[in-house]
């Protein structure tokens, strides 16, 4: 009888393990919900909250605040969340310059940071931290993939990115794999909206391919202006340049553009199909790459919290490192520096039933790792 009771208790505890943790968990989400970059932050928040909602877990609270894409504001919010809200984990920052202002000090205060997007090189190598995880990629990865792709059929590339940490990581990543000649390497202002001067240089450069990393509104402006310029050189970029948050605003000018991504809406696996259906049902639009990354970040946190308490940083960290989740990306595991090892694909912008979206073309990298992991001693 005792045995039976024990078995019943065990069975019960297993079946409810997804519903309750030993201790409540408080997550602080700092993301961009106003200003030009708001689309990215809203997809981050919505993707994250979708995973929390799907889990049905009542012990998780998420405090969300808007950083307005301003580093100083992000720092204030982080301080407030750590000191007065007493959160256990911080997450959600979209931009690398904001992350650099927040994450190092948060982990120094013993809080976990699980990044949903920003992944500067500075935190992936020698300065990695056992409390800092990245659920998205390392900033260079998608650009490295485009460098590899460009080797196939382009001899002379014109490359362009905004002048901030992720922009520099971008072009560094591209050049790490690209073997051909560079026509020019141009850095623009963050938030720049007029690219006439750069497009004129592209026209005159004699390049046979153009690589641009311009997330959010910058990419919209560039693609529309490029389409009008009469320059016929093919444009490519990392997934962010043609992600679902900007495609409707760019319009048909984006058709045919090649990009790299670790996920696209046409991925043929159960987790991806479920994610896509749930997201569309909940929010009535297609998710972007940012939503997937945040969805996985939330899944990672939930998976670790189900097995360990966040108060025990070593145990919680060990559970996070196992990455025991069903990612829409298909495969997902962590490298030694707690950045993902994952496949990266080439995608193309197409129109399906009147909606612009990305279609998978081919796989560029299998089990791709970043270049900085070897310097990380955890």
């Amino acid at each position, binding site marked *: 009888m005792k045995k039976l009771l024990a078995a019943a208790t065990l069975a019960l505890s297993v079946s409810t393990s997804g519903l309750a943790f030993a201790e409540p968990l408080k997550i602080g989400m700092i993301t961009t919900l*106003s200003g*030009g970059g708001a689309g990215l932050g809203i997809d981050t928040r919505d993707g994250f909250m979708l995973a929390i909602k799907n889990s049905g877990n009542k012990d998780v609270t998420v405090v969300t605040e808007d950083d307005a894409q301003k580093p100083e504001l992000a720092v204030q919010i982080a301080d407030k969340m750590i000191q007065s809200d007493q959160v256990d984990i911080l997450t959600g920052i979209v931009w690398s310059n904001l992350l650099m202002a927040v994450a190092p000090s948060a982990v120094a205060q013993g809080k976990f940071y699980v990044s949903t997007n920003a992944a500067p090189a500075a935190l992936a190598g020698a300065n990695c931290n056992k409390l800092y995880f990245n659920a998205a990629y390392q900033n260079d990865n998608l650009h490295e993939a485009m460098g590899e792709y460009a080797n196939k059929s382009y001899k002379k590339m014109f490359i362009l990115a905004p002048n901030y940490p992720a922009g520099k990581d971008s072009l560094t990543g591209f050049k790490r794999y690209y073997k051909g000649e560079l026509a*020019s390497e141009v850095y623009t202002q963050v938030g720049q909206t007029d690219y006439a001067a750069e497009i*004129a240089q592209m*026209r005159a450069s004699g390049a046979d391919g153009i690589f641009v990393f311009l997330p959010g*509104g910058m990419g919209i402006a560039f693609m529309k202006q490029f389409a*009008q310029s009469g320059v016929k050189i093919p444009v490519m970029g990392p997934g962010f340049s043609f992600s679902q948050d900007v495609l409707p605003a760019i319009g048909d000018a984006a058709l045919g553009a090649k990009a790299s991504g670790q996920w696209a809406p046409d991925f043929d696996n159960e987790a991806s199909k479920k994610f896509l259906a749930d997201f569309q049902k909940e929010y009535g639009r297609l998710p972007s790459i940012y939503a997937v990354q945040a969805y996985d970040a939330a899944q990672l946190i939930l998976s670790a919290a189900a097995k360990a308490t966040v108060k025990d940083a070593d145990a919680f960290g060990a559970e996070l490192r196992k990455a025991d989740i069903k990612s829409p990306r298909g495969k997902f595991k962590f490298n030694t520096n707690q950045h993902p090892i994952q496949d990266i694909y080439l995608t193309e912008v197409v129109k399906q039933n009147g909606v612009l979206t990305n279609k998978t073309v081919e796989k560029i990298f299998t089990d791709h790792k970043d270049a900085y992991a070897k310097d990380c001693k955890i």
Partner: protein
Amino acid sequence: MTLALALEQLLNGLQLGVMLFLMAAGLTLIFGVMGLINLAHGSLYMVGAFACATVAAWTGSFWIGLVASLACAAAAGALVELLIIRRLYDRDHLDQVLATFALILMFSEGMRWLFGSFPLYLDIPPLLQGAVPLPGGTEYPVYRLAIIAAGAAVAFGLYMLISRTRLGMRIRAGESDREMIGALGVDIRTLYTVVFALGAALAGLAGALVGALQSVQVGMGEPVLILAFVVIVIGGIGSIKGALLGALLVGVTDTMGRFLLPKILALFVPPAQAGMIGGAAASMLIYIVMALILAVKPRGLFPAAHA
């Protein structure tokens, strides 16, 4: 560097300048006549862009959208003047800055509430699609040429309005002596509303024209607003002529700086660094130019008479 490229960049500078002029003209007109610093001018630019994008999506015509952008921005301007700005004329500039800054926040959140955070789609009308050949074998987008033409037309129209019409006469009188024209029986309150609506309409027009080229989203006005302030400070606050020259100077300096500085630096340092340092230096260039001009002419190139 070829002549064709230099010509193209010069046109780009001119086009950026013209766009800044549309913003700066309204800003400087409002300051000149009412002595008001209007930070919410960028919000009216945003209103114009959103109005154009929405109406163009409804009707399928960019041109109807353009008319709507003028109407909506002017209406929003008039409304804001009647409800809020009117109470600020006698206050000092700090109060005006605070109140109009609050307006920026209200407009931004209001737009987000109405339209959401994702950028809207607004495309260039079919008539102005594509590019035309230029001498020297290069091509230039028709739409950017159209913006230059529109800016020139607005500059000419404003000149005619101010120098040849009764309304213009009152505006000039208002600039030189506010109390006196009130005493002479001109309805100064209506005049202020009209001038404010006119400035707002210009900002709305700029927003709609630029929205088709860039992205229509919440917060699009603020970066342009900063440049517009640089323009009117260089040109002399309150002077339309100064705004025109200041705008062209800023447009050409910014474009040429972005184009030439990295190239010049590349002669001395490796290209990757030249791109990075050159890009950063280019973004400072217009402020350096502003500082130099203010050092020589502290009140700008064409200081307004009453200031």
